[in-house]
């Protein structure tokens, strides 16, 4: 372990607040330290802050490390701060995001084929909220845009990377199983 790194990282992460810090930024800043050392120290810190004695935790969503207050603090924060508004995402938005996350890069028409509804407006809303972004075009007629999820998406859904996406449920015929009941 690299005990001397911990206070430095704690201080820097505190200062950076909700902007957070990426591994690349840390490597630039702490030239003499290897990526492995940093990762190891950050992992240890993440575990340490999970302890009940702490009201904040260290998270890494979409490759960005940052401190956030724990869920348990939220009721108190609501009393203390006036602007702790919660925003909501509609189920239509959630569905569309799920499709993009699993199928990216994907065109709007492909999303529409799965959802069975027009998604023009929804795609524009998700772009405006920076939850998806354009990532090139296909060669299909009209050269439609391809979309993928953003780092903000990862942060919004507590994901370190797309590898963490839950497995898509499989729906299988159940008749076979009934035979053995």
């Amino acid at each position, binding site marked *: 372990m690299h005990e001397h790194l911990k206070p430095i990282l704690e201080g820097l992460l505190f200062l950076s607040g909700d902007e957070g810090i990426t591994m690349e930024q840390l490597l630039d800043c702490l030239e003499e330290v290897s990526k492995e050392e940093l990762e190891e120290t950050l992992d240890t810190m993440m575990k340490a802050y999970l302890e009940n004695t702490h009201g904040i935790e260290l998270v890494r969503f979409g490759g960005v490390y940052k401190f956030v207050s724990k869920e348990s603090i939220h009721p108190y924060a609501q009393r203390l701060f006036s602007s702790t508004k919660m925003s909501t995402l509609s189920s239509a938005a959630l569905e569309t995001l799920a499709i993009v996350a699993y199928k990216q890069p994907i065109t709007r028409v492909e999303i529409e*084929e*799965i959802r069975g509804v027009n998604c023009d407006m929804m795609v524009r809303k998700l772009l405006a909220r920076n939850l998806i972004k354009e990532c090139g075009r296909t060669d299909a007629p009209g050269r439609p845009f391809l979309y993928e999820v953003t780092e903000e998406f990862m942060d919004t859904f507590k994901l370190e990377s797309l590898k963490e996406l839950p497995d898509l449920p499989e729906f299988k015929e159940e008749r076979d199983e009934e035979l053995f009941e």
Partner: protein
Amino acid sequence: MAFTIMIDQFEGPLDLMLHLIKDNKLDLFDLDMNILTDQYLQYLNAMESMHLEVASEYLAELAGLLEYKSKKLLPREKVVIEEEYEEDQREKLVKRLLEYQRYKEVSAQFEQKYEERQLMMSKPISEETNKWVHTVTEAEIDGNPYDLIKAMNRVLRRMALSHPLETRMTVKELSLDERVVQIKKRLRDFVGKMSFEDLCSDCDSLHMVIVTFLSVLDLIKHKEITFTLDAQDVIWIIKGEVVYA
């Protein structure tokens, strides 16, 4: 049958179909298209009768269901029924329903994560950092007016979009009842048979074609007209009830 659930509780026609399948305890892997189509049609009719706008997507899917059903219903000797084609259509729909269901289910997990994340908060970057930020000379900022307008666009777009995400965008369209009246009027002075295409000559959108088609179905149901299909698959509309010989 009482429909207590409103159409805007569904995310689209596939969602509605999944609901109807579950509600009627249909087997998705051995889907009874007749029951599904009837239920679906009843549902949309109920919505129409409550003067609720039904989005075009629902009508487009209805057209598919009706096509399948009508091929099944028509006298066998009159139409060459391609069993394979029909099975394909059904399988295609089941495949779409299954695919859609996967994303629908998984999005519930997204929702949970989202809610958890909403309870975790952070703070802005510390003011202290200003003094270090300031070491960069202002001259290095390379701004251009386009960045500004792009930024303003983002702001305005967000404002325009900050209405409830659920607002359904539907163009005000001709209702089924209005169309039925129109068609009756046109057929009143018409002698002989009119092709469905002619009937649609005043349609300026797919939606209107579908409404026209639904009106024709409605008129058939009420025995005001009947129809035949010729070898070229042209639908001919005939006034009054015709008894198949």
